[in-house]
């Protein structure tokens, strides 16, 4: 069997087991929606700030739902793999002709599945609640693709942590740290409106800000090549770096001769 076939087999299993655990899907999808509902009402006064780029906090905030969903996806992918390591399932797979890269990519299937469901739900709910894309249908599609890629990237980070630690508990304990990245980004305000210097500096060096801003421009300000370029760049960097580091970790974790 070629690598593509192996990836499909592993991904099929990952997606199947993910869909059979509603407890891993429902909170992941609904929690960001709850936060969207609360913040788009509770923080809408922020739109009165001079220089705020839109008069709808819902439009401004909806990319955060995609980011939160992606962070949850990282937990799903990581915990699943950590369980496989702990239970010996990884050894079972290691005894087949499966290639390491097939395991990494296939294992991300669950994260991509959840990311896709989330993206569909958030887009649907957002549009139903009144979100209007300045970039139209094409922009919505680009946002959809970026959101799934971000879920893939954070899923790869989850897999890296699982391979490094071999423990589901460790993956879950790292999860709040990843959420911290979201909080110190341009999640609640555009960077130019953040008045506290250290916070603005943190948001500026935080790649998550650029992922959010890429999605945000598609909704509120139209096509912006620089924002989109940076958003996709950091997303691909995250995917590439996490997968490369995961591949190295997998070699020591799956030390078959």
């Amino acid at each position: 069997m070629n690598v593509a076939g192996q990836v499909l087999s592993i991904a099929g299993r990952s997606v199947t087991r993910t869909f059979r655990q509603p407890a891993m899907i429902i909170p992941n999808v609904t929690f960001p929606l709850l936060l969207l509902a609360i913040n788009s009402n509770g923080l809408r006064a922020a739109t009165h700030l001079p220089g705020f780029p839109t008069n709808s906090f819902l439009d401004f905030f909806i990319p955060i739902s995609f980011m939160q969903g992606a962070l949850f996806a990282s937990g799903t992918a990581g915990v699943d793999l950590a369980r496989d390591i702990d239970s010996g399932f990884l050894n079972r797979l290691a005894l087949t002709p499966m290639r390491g890269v097939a395991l990494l990519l296939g294992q991300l299937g669950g994260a991509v599945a959840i990311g896709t469901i989330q993206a569909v739900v958030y887009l649907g709910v957002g549009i139903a609640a009144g979100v209007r894309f300045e970039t139209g249908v094409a922009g919505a599609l680009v946002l959809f693709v970026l959101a799934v890629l971000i879920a893939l990237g954070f899923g790869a980070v989850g897999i890296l942590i699982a391979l490094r630690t071999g423990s589901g508990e460790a993956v879950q304990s790292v999860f709040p740290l990843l959420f911290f990245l979201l909080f110190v980004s341009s999640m609640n305000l555009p960077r130019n409106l953040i008045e506290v210097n250290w916070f603005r500096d943190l948001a500026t060096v935080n790649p998550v800000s650029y992922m959010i801003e890429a999605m945000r421009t598609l909704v509120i300000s139209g096509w912006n090549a620089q924002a989109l370029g940076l958003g996709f760049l950091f997303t691909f960097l995250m995917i590439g770096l996490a997968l490369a580091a995961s591949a190295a970790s997998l070699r020591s974790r799956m030390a078959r001769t």
Partner: protein
Amino acid sequence: MRDTHGIQAEGLAREFKGGIRAVDGIDLQVSPGEIYGFLGPNGAGKSTTVHMLTTLLPPTAGWARVAGFDVKKHGPQVRGAIGAALQEAALDPFLTGREHLRLQSSLHGLSRQERLRRTADLLERVGLTQAADRKIKGYSGGMKRRLDIALALVHEPSILFLDEPTTGLDVQSRSALWGEVGRLAKGEGVTVFLTTQYLEEADVLADRVGIIHRGNIVAEGTPEALRAEIGRPTVEVVPHEQGDRPRIEETLRAFGPPTAGSPDAVSVRIEEEADLANIVRALDAAGIHVARIQLHEPTLDDVFLAKTGTSLEGAAEDEEEEQLETVTA
């Protein structure tokens, strides 16, 4: 698939961080079609040996050839020739038995038609056809173990590694599994390398047994030959009155050397079973009343005791304590 090469190893060793030598230079020679029982307590090095022979763990010294391939240099070829059911049935609780077989067979590169045929055959063979579409989390321990073995057989391996396959199983499941392993070896010529901590399992199932203790093979041979090596049966006499114990010891001394036995009994190793009648006569002639008198054929535990100075059960506790001390040190 009939095996023609078997397993060979010489000086095979695995040292872990901190200088712990889990396997300390063992030699193995397992013939094609043979069931080799690797007997030892927890922590003796059984699973580490299996991990090295199945290519999951590189040896730190020595060499091993499995199905004609060097485990260090030809890992993929070794994996292609072997099947393995490792210590705990590693199954995905959210998948069904059929889905496990489908995943395993597709990763082994079987065509769609072969996959369907092989899945149906194996489910039938291990008696899981009815439960094939149930999720694993609803399976009993025995069902999981049977599926585990079916998964190991998907690609028709010529050598099968079973790491403590019956640990935790009830008597009925254990017996069914022994039957299946026997059929594989005797009917299909599959070489079986089986680790166990159950004396009975090694005795019933294995053509030859290797006893491992603290990373070393301390005895090897057919169960019969090993028992014959220490050879002679023991007679255990429980006095009616414990005060008669010295007289019984004196009477039995004429029949053979004293040996370890039940704490309330006097035991001697006798030359042959016919001595039992003589012992009864001698005790009667001495006017000694006995509560119980028993003849024990030598067991593999006696072999273990003779070779290591401790019983298999006691050794398991010692190993566990040592491991605990290593962890806490």
